[in-house]
């Protein structure tokens, strides 16, 4: 009954303990909570039967009974892959702080734990109000993580990010308040299952979908709302950036998946406008990434570009789009976390974020260059890595929608290869500077890179079980006539 809620409770408890634990204990506490959550999640997933019990381990509590608002979390097919990603990345990000000279205090790990709990709650949320609660609740610890542990320009960057996201969140809240109360006779918001069955007038759908879409477009970010992203990433503390870039950036596209079965008609009407908008972001992000000299900014724009493709695929409303979108979220999360971690390793050793500042590291540190190469291959979508599977599905359904749009979408593969290989080549190859002493990889760093590298390959070889999960989420489309 409370099995799903336990996945929120574990990191939450560890977070609260961390705030009071000493500086020495807190990292281990946080790591332990990450590992325990991961194994607990695997346990739940192992006994999860998607066919028999689509929604399992329900926890539904009457939160505000006067307004028939329920706190409802549970485990469903759409949530599995994002949850897996969350447990993995949070654990790895905690591990990434296990470096010599780690001066993060106990509050840092407390905030990481709160973020972890919020993300788990977000992905497991089973009705719009719970969804909104965790959407906003996750923002607050991340705000403090960047505000307290970020770079010198963090204040402005985080404030911009915060206001943007809160604005989107408030639009969503207005829409949910409207849904909750204005339509209460006809509408049930107790669980997604019932929620999708509701019929909403088209004129309302337009407005409400616009509110939700802007919220998700800001959070992801999608094309015209992306200006906060590179600034925030450049200033964030890098281990926590792994969570922000790999998991939090998925909240927006995941929201699209959650709500697109509800706004079906509105999406069909607006597809012709929204999908090109996402694809503009794909090409634009890739081109800007190409010209970056700052590693973090390069990766930020690369992330922006890839997420545009995921959103475009989801908005085609095809079965393959949802499946590919969910899998690409996992793949991109792993690759992004890996790339940001490699950037962190490089920056800590060379003291610069500029690509110009480093070269020839492969000779100093061949192991690092090998891990890095595997991750880059996945990020550019090479077959037999997990990056390929997701992008292939997404491009396929784009091609089915409008073939010429797939050409633009396909540019992410080409341009992605261009800027990521440029990144790889500039840092790893070339003249090895004589004056640099490059510290070897520590055990924890090795570990993070091995886990990501292995997963990228294993998921690339055996994707079918994972990708298939998406089609169970897609069954909600059957409630409604297609097009």
């Amino acid at each position, binding site marked *: 009954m409370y099995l799903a809620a336990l996945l929120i409770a574990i990191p939450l408890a560890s977070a609260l303990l961390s705030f009071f634990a000493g500086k020495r204990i807190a990292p281990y506490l946080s790591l332990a909570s990450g590992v325990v959550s991961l194994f607990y999640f695997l346990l739940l997933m192992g006994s999860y039967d998607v066919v028999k019990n689509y929604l399992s381990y329900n926890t539904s509590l*009457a*939160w*505000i*009974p*006067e*307004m028939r*608002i329920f706190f409802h979390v549970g485990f469903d097919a759409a949530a599995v892959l994002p949850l897996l990603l969350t447990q993995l990345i949070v654990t790895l990000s905690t591990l990434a702080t296990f470096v010599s000279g780690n001066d993060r205090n106990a509050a840092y790990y407390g905030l990481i734990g709160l973020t972890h709990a919020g993300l788990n709650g977000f992905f497991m949320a089973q009705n719009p109000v719970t969804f*909104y*609660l*965790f959407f*906003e*609740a996750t923002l*607050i610890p991340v*705000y*403090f993580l960047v*505000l*307290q542990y970020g770079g010198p320009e963090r*204040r402005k960057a985080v*404030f911009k990010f*915060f*206001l943007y996201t*809160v*604005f989107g969140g*408030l*639009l969503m*809240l*207005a829409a949910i*308040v*409207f849904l*909750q*109360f*204005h339509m209460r006779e006809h509408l049930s918001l107790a669980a997604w299952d019932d929620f999708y069955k509701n019929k909403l007038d088209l004129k309302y759908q337009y407005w409400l979908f616009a509110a939700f879409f802007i919220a998700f477009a800001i959070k992801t970010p999608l094309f015209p709302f992306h200006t906060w992203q590179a600034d925030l990433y450049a200033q964030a503390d890098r281990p926590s950036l792994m969570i922000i870039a790999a998991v939090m950036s998925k909240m927006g596209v995941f929201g699209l998946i959650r709500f697109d079965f509800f706004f079906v008609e509105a999406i069909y009407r607006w597809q012709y406008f929204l999908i090109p908008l996402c694809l503009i972001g794909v090409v634009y992000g890739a081109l800007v990434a190409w010209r970056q000299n700052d590693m973090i900014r390069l990766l930020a724009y690369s992330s922006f570009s890839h997420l545009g493709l995921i959103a475009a695929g989801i908005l085609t409303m095809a079965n393959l789009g949802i499946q590919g979108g969910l899998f690409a979220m996992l793949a991109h999360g792993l690759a992004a976390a890996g790339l940001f971690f490699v950037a962190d390793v490089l920056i800590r050793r060379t003291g610069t974020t500029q690509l110009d500042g480093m070269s020839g590291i492969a000779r100093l540190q061949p192991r690092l260059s090998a891990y890095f190469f595997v991750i880059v291959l996945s990020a550019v979508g090479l077959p037999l890595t997990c990056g390929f599977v997701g992008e292939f599905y997404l491009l396929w359904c784009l091609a089915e929608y409008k073939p010429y749009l797939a050409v633009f979408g396909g540019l992410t593969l080409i341009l992605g290869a261009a800027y990521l290989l440029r990144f790889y080549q500039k840092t790893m190859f070339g003249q090895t500077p004589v004056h640099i002493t490059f510290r070897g990889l520590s055990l924890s760093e090795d570990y993070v890179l091995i886990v990501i590298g292995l997963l990228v390959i294993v998921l690339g070889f055996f994707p079918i079980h994972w990708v298939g999960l998406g089609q169970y989420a897609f069954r909600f489309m059957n409630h409604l006539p297609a097009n």
Partner: protein
Amino acid sequence: MMTAFIFLCLFAIAAMFLGFTNIRGAIVPLAFAGTSIALYSVISGQPFWNHYLTGMVETGGTAKILCALVLLNALALIPFYAWYERRGQEEVGDFTGLFLFASMGAMLMVSSTHYMSLFLGVEILSIAMYVLAGADRRKSKSNEAALKYFITGSFTSAILLFGIGMIYALTGSLEIAGAVEVEGQSLLQLAYLFVFTGFALKIAVVPFHFWAPDVYEGTPTLFTAAMASLVKLASIGAFLRIIQLNVDLLPAWLNAYYAMLILATLILGNALAIKQQSVKRLLAYSGIVQAGFILMGFISLRPGEEWPVLFYFIAYVLASVVCFVVVHFVESREGTDALDAFRGLGQRNPILAGTITLALISLAGGPFTSGFVAKLYVLNQAVANGYAALAVVAVVCTLMSVYYYYKVINAIYSKSADQALPIEPVYSGLLILFTLITLAAGILPSFFTGLLK
């Protein structure tokens, strides 16, 4: 109920006289004890001597809940007045005594069924607060605040009294629920307009807010806390009771009147708060905006539906008490309440920083705090009665409030080289307690609404 009034008066007088003696340390505990006794007698519904109230005071229902809230609010503030002992002045007796009188006035206001006792309550509360506004008599700003508060307060009383007088002239009765069948309906509506506007002035909603920021800024911060919580609670509570008692007679334009006030308050109040550099002024505007939100719960209010407003009181009072108390501690060390004085508070005293941060998040309506649920309740009230557009404007205006609340939080968690700012463990404990209640009311709202129904 009568016993509560008697105990508050007796302890207030005792506190004032103890100020002349050497045992000033006993004043605050005594005031706390007296208020606790009053609270007990209200909650237990002590009937002793109630017949002397001659039906001018309601002793049950919403009035009882409001009285309990007023006294709880007083209990939350009284311990902090011990701070005045350390200045080595005899004023602690006067201040505490006046505060007890103010609480009594507030109680009388929210429990009246008669315009006479209502006006008496307004005056008892106001006159005590005028003096407390000027408590820091060596500072010109405090004097200025007292004078401004006195003038606008008198103006408010005059408008209120004018309305009451017209009602008396038309109905021949001062019973709040007494206006049944009258000739000259239109004149009665004018009378209501005067009464409501008097309360709008007291509550400080736009366009009747102009006095609040100046008065809040000049008043010693611990009494600003009382002004923001107790006075607002009493004024809105009394307003609520008038609406409740007249529910069948209310003019048709009332909802439009609320909507106009709310719209002006949310847009202008938020817009004016953005530029503030003084945290007290910022919180004054924030209080104005919160009052606008509370008014949203008044739209088409039916008997038995008061609990959203009451819940909002809990959320608002807790958050604003915490905010002003923390401002008080910072101000008393730094000598200023400018935003810059809060820089680095996160390092200087994590408890002060953490509690004010959560209070501000609650005021902004962050998830899992009481502020969020409270806002949801009143938004529900607005949407359910056909004011969906108003609710949407309110939600979007919240963006502005997020901007200025987080401006303060941003300052608190910036780095600074200043030394630590220690406070007594009792005060830390109280602040943490208020914060925990804020969170509890956000996570388990049904428990609290159950108490309020």
